[in-house]
């Protein structure tokens, strides 16, 4: 089953443009993550796909069929909400069974399917409880079970992990990945957390201001960010991006000078991932002399926040130790293959 957004826009009554001609297509079985900061339109895109919101323009297609006007119940999709949206007056069992009952599944099947799904999510012993007797993580599992029990074609999840504490979020993440593999259902997952996106998605759609910036696998998004925004949004610590000017094949930004042979003169943004920055001795000839500002040890990582003049950089050395402390002078090397270039005006990646 293939899903496609074709030129989908959404303008709210107050004039807010939530989505601006979104074109996006993906296939069955994918785990698609809609990633973006708040106000990027990711939730709106998800709700339009669900049928909870009507697009102002454009169409939604499933297998080439226009489903834009279909009510939610005829789309074969389910949804997990950020606040779980469990029915408070029903038990966990009744909550999970509800979509099956509404959709008219035979009674015998309902019990079997509910119990199987509960087993899969390890909530078999909680089925008699009511939502208010469940912890956040348990309620989340019940919500996921309710969304998957009737085997929808697509399961939509709108920031489902945002209300969980850190450890639980990690566990649930792993669980979702397992569920996706076992059920082979198409997942569409909305989040603002790039780490969640990177770990879960088979493909990630990065949105900003209602526009699709990049839609690709996590690996390619990380290695070849389409714009400066994606480069800075994906990866923690974020990619170093430096505004500067190219003159005579050398990139200048304050005291920093990096050779960029073949680049046309003019303004340019240079980017390099913290882990690609090489820390050398201060005395090495090719090194860029910098001063250490702050050292952060997040084992096994070591983050060095350094500056040279006005330019600040982060270097990340995995597993290596250094005795450099604040105020020390060290040297850095920026290996040419690791450099990213972005247009200074548009932020678009340059080859």
């Amino acid at each position: 089953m293939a899903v496609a957004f074709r030129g989908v826009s959404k303008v709210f009554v107050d004039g807010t443009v939530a989505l601006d001609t979104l074109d996006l297509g993906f296939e069955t079985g994918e785990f698609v993550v809609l990633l973006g900061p708040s106000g990027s339109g990711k939730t709106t895109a998800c709700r339009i796909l669900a049928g909870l919101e009507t697009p102002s323009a454009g169409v939604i297609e499933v297998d080439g069929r226009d489903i834009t006007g279909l009510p939610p119940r005829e789309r074969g999709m389910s949804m997990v909400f950020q606040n779980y949206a469990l029915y408070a007056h029903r038990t966990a069992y009744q909550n999970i069974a509800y979509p099956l009952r509404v959709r008219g599944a035979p009674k015998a099947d309902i019990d079997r399917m509910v119990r199987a799904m509960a087993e899969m999510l390890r909530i078999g012993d909680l089925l008699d409880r009511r939502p208010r007797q469940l912890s956040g993580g348990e309620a989340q599992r019940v919500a996921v079970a309710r969304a998957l029990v009737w085997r929808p074609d697509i399961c939509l999840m709108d920031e489902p992990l945002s209300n969980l504490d850190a450890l639980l979020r990690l566990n649930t993440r792993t669980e979702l990945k397992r569920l996706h593999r076992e059920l082979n259902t198409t997942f569409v997952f909305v989040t603002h957390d790039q780490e969640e996106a990177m770990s879960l998605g088979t493909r990630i759609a990065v949105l900003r201001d209602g526009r699709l910036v990049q839609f690709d696998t996590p690996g390619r998004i990380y290695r070849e960010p389409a714009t400066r925004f994606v480069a800075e949004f994906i990866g923690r610590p974020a990619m170093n991006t430096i505004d500067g000017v190219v003159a005579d094949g050398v990139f200048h930004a304050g005291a920093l000078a990096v050779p960029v042979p073949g680049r046309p003169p003019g303004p340019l943004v240079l980017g390099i991932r913290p882990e690609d920055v090489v820390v050398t001795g201060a005395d090495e000839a090719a090194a860029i002399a910098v001063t250490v500002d702050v050292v952060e040890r997040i084992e096994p990582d070591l983050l060095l926040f350094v500056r040279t003049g006005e330019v600040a950089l982060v270097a990340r050395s995995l597993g290596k130790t250094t005795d450099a402390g604040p105020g020390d002078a060290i040297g850095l090397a920026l290996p040419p293959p690791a450099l990213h270039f972005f247009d200074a005006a548009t932020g678009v990646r340059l080859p």
Partner: protein
Amino acid sequence: MSRAWRAAMLAALLAVLVVALTPYVWIILTSFKSRLDALADHPVWLFTPTFAHYPKVFIDKQYLPLVWNSALVASSSTVLSLVVGAPAAYVFARNDFAGKEDLFFFFLTTRMAPPISVVVPMFLLFTAVGLTDRPAAVIIAHTSFNLSLVVWMMRGFFADIPREIDEAALMDGHGRLGAFARVLLPLAAPGLAATAILCFILSWNEFLYAFILVAFESRTLTVGIPGLVTPHGTLWGQVAAVAVVATLPIVIFTMAVQRHLVRGLTFGAVKG
């Protein structure tokens, strides 16, 4: 809470109880007093009870059907108000449309005029459609008052239910109507119960419109009471007997659903 506070609170509660219950106790006592005792210069607390008033008024004077009339009018107007008002309240809570708040306020304005100012126009309206002296007239009249109450109260109850619940119901396979009837209404049940009780009490106790719109067979209990004020004096014992019977269903009903009522009336006042 300190002991002194507790004692003070209890004393205050007791004072309120005495003030609130004394008239009621007095009516119950009067319904068992002979005519002489009821009219005694110095009110008597101890007297030889008579059980004559109840059979006299309900059997001999045939007031029993009036209980049925009151029940019919109050329950019908309650159901009608809820059936019409709850969906309206839901729409007010969930949808945006032009003039929404004005329309919402308009519902309240129906309660702003003193009831007596509308009674003659309403009487003429019901006469024109031939409904006077039928329970339907009182039912419709009471519904028209209760509707604003239902819409105003229920909007708050629905607004307190997260929107995602509606959306979950839609994703689970309901249409909008199904989501409302099968998911939202059960969730709003405490509020619905509280609203229903208020509607029922208001209708059951209403006198003016019931008095003007019906005269004979369809009289409600409240309308029956003035019939006991005769040229020879007020029959206090019988008045009290009718009053006691008239309050009984409310007392029983309220006690039965007290838990819901308190929850419903404070629902939304304190966010959890």
